[in-house]
């Protein structure tokens, strides 16, 4: 089989060709207009980045059907693997099946988690001793900044993976509302990743927040970050539109919004955030790019701009983004707990609406990242109050989880362990929040390792742990086989204590005066031991993740056959064969009861075939 048959390979070639076209185009234009020198790296590379991205999308084949539409050529949806090619090639090219796209997202998310984690291990090793050992400060800053964006990219990809794979299955839909758009939204992440990682070779030292003026005067790597994140944002917006339409228009008869599996509520709230907030980071990154390129003075005080404006636009996305990162994970927790407690989810409607409430409050708290930024002082007070308010809906979730556990018949297979681990870690992240939310106590803690500990706990509790729980939980549905339970438990018992050590260690040295984002630290702070502990814990977490990956790959062949419903779940996706067939549901389903009525005799949630007419299936 020729490699050229893989969409990914054609896409990469397309990106290389597009980049080259961009470089040549700008140079020729400059030469034609007599600019001296004709070869100016930054504008050439920016044009290369943009045209290269388009080249990838063309090469991979994501635009093919749309181009055919324009030419009036019919484009029937193809099902199953490409003709005369092995089945695995589906994952390396454009495929419209949401289950394939979900796996593509999820695996790419896991890969980026490994890349981002590896960056962290590199600079964690450097930090074990004071003094610069094997990294110079420029390299340190670049790797530290890249760690941030690769890790966040991993979150967005994994969120896309979970929602793509699960939402259509959970609402009994044949596929997403717009399959071609879905494939486009996944594939545009790949040039984004390539651009982001390319920045490593040009260097950039702004941290993931890329505040100007540093990001405007710094080296050219920044431009690759700006356009990488721009493509990533495009994926978020298009993906979320697809999810919202699927959820609102393609549910089966009988499934009112309050009868959706609870994960769908979390994804619905998340998608509205993604659809409405992502534009701000795209815009602010373009403004930075153009200030560098064209001398536009958006954030330049000498030209009437202000650096603080950038911080507003940046956090107007990036704070809601925190909830984009954690709401799906909290949805996973709420989804999995009832199954292993054999009890209804406590207060379904409250849990569902708390996601919406968090999403809404999330829009008016961005200023708490800027308490010491130099914006008007009176602004600190309203942002402090709105920030504290987030505690209320978050509390509702915690208490509802406790209510769900209470009186259950609890079992503890690996997914349940990771869900409980997620609750404990997210509790640590959540409770270390209000202390940063009141301005005066934020002052000594902001920009220190305390903040680092806080948001790593939030993101591990709200993303990493639930994502891992979801992987173990749906692995039998995806592959048809069980993972190795012992190895899963070992993974949990390594990773959870290690994470606690890491996060608490970060908070401790932060309080002692360890600043964020420094390549080297003052030995008189006496934080060396803390750094050693954090580094050891970081390596332990990495080992746990590798163990999981070995487990997942190994069990593909030797895992015991899972059957349709090893967890005895009521959710629709567990009532069909594992792995899920090409056409998920052999016949349309209908909903006749509540999703989480575990322990209620003779209650059912869904019926296959149902007696009802299928109202929505034809609409799309």
């Amino acid at each position: 089989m020729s490699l050229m048959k893989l969409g990914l390979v054609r896409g990469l070639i397309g990106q290389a060709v597009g980049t080259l076209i961009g470089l040549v185009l700008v140079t020729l234009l400059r030469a034609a207009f007599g600019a001296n020198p004709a070869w100016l790296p930054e504008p050439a590379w920016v044009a290369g980045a943009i045209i290269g991205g388009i080249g990838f999308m063309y090469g991979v084949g994501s635009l093919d059907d749309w181009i055919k539409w324009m030419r009036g050529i019919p484009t029937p949806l193809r099902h199953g693997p490409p003709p005369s090619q092995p089945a695995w090639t589906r994952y390396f090219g454009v495929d419209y099946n949401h289950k394939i796209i979900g796996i593509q997202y999820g695996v790419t998310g896991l890969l980026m988690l490994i890349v981002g984690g590896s960056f962290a291990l590199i600079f964690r090793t450097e930090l074990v001793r004071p003094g610069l050992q094997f990294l110079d400060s420029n390299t340190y800053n670049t790797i530290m900044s890249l760690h941030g964006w690769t890790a966040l990219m991993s979150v967005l990809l994994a969120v896309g993976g979970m929602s793509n794979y699960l939402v259509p299955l959970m609402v009994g839909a044949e596929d997403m509302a717009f399959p071609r758009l879905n494939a486009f939204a996944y594939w545009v992440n790949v040039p984004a990743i390539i651009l982001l990682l390319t920045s490593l070779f040009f260097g950039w030292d702004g941290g993931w927040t890329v505040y100007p003026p540093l990001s405007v005067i710094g080296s050219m790597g920044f431009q690759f970050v700006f356009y990488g994140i721009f493509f990533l944002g495009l994926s978020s917006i298009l993906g979320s539109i697809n999810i919202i339409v699927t959820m609102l228009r393609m549910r089966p008869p009988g499934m009112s919004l309050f009868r959706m599996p609870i994960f769908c509520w979390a994804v619905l709230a998340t998608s509205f955030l993604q659809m409405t907030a992502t534009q701000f980071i795209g815009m602010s990154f373009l403004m930075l790019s153009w200030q560098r390129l064209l001398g536009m003075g958006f954030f330049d005080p000498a030209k009437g701009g202000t650096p603080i404006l950038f911080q507003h636009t940046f956090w107007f996305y990036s704070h809601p983004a925190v909830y984009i990162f954690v709401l799906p994970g909290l949805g996973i927790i709420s989804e999995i707990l009832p199954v292993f407690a054999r009890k209804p989810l406590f207060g379904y409607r409250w849990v569902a609406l708390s996601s919406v409430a968090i999403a809404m409050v999330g829009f008016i708290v961005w200023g708490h990242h800027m308490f010491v930024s130099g914006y008007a002082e009176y602004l600190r007070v309203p942002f402090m109050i709105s920030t504290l308010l987030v505690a209320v809906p978050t509390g509702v979730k915690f208490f509802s989880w406790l209510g769900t556990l209470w009186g259950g018949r609890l079992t503890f297979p690996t997914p349940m362990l990771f869900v409980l681990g997620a609750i404990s870690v997210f509790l640590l992240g959540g409770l270390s929040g209000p202390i940063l939310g009141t301005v005066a106590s934020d002052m000594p803690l902001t920009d220190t390792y305390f903040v680092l500990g806080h948001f790593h706990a939030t993101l591990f509790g709200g993303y990493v742990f639930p994502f891992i729980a979801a992987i173990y939980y749906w692995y039998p549905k995806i592959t048809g086989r069980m993972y190795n339970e012992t190895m899963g438990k070992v993974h949990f018992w390594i990773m959870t204590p290690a994470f606690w050590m890491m996060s608490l260690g970060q908070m401790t040295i932060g309080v002692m005066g360890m600043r964020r984002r420094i390549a080297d630290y003052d030995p008189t702070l006496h934080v060396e031991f803390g750094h050693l502990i954090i580094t050891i814990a970081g390596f332990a977490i990495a080992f746990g993740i590798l163990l999981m990956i070995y487990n997942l790959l190994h069990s593909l062949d030797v895992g015991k056959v899972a059957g349709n419903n090893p967890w005895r779940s009521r959710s629709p996706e567990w009532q069909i064969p594992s792995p899920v067939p090409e056409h998920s549901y052999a016949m349309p389903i209908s909903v006749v009861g509540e999703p989480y009525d575990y322990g209620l005799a003779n209650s059912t949630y869904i019926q296959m075939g149902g007696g009802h007419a299928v109202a929505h299936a034809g609409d799309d």
Partner: protein
Amino acid sequence: MPKSASDKRHFLIIAALIVISTVVLYFLLDKMLPLPAQGSDEALVIDGLIKSHLVVIAFLFSLVGVFMIYALVVFRKREGDESEGEHFEGNTVLEIVWTVVPLIFVVFFAFYGINALAQVTHSEPNEFEVKAEGQQWSWDFVYPNGVVSPELVLPVNKRIHVTLHSKDVLHDFWIPEMRVKQDLVPGQDTQIRFTPILTGDFKVRCAELCGRNHYSMETPVHIMQQADYEKWMSDQEAAQLSGGSSTITDTANITGTANISGTTGVSGTTSVTNTINVTDTSK
């Protein structure tokens, strides 16, 4: 052990465990988060606020943690028990309680937080004025009489008002022992105030990423008695203002003061290099 989910004995046991856990946890948190020396009035206010947060954190952590661990133990599935969990779907009264109670905490901390903020940032007449200029990757401190120093020398027990000015990118003025922190923003001057109450040697540490050598953008701070401060200042005036010595404004890294020990004031000039291993001037 009671088995039924609604048995009152569960809640009595849990209440007792929560009380114990809260006390133990507060003690642990306090040990685990060793704040630097309280060098200013602001540190007293801020540490008070932090401690009251820690009380609430200890309580809430115990509340959720004890309930969770208790439930995991008591409601675990027993060998051979194939029954499902008890069927209840929610409780509106409980939901309202755990929405309203956190709201009370929110109101309390909002009120406390506003007061603490006002105390920390208040201004007074006759403040001690100094200007801090940050640039990649060093500090200059300009006194109202024109004296410029690469190290910050301040009298104790005076309300200090620092006007912060950045010459290039964002920086952040932070002396951990004073607690307060403020960004320097190019194009606009920002303000920070504090009242030192401890004499001794500290460091200003830049807390906003500012490029390659951000990590080493630190410089000594000396808080001293008024008389010592005046002696230091008159030495500086003699050196800088009368003789027209221009070394300080011309060179970047800087002939300035070092080796201040207690009350003896200044002795000589030492070159302060831009590394983290600035000569440790503590006694």
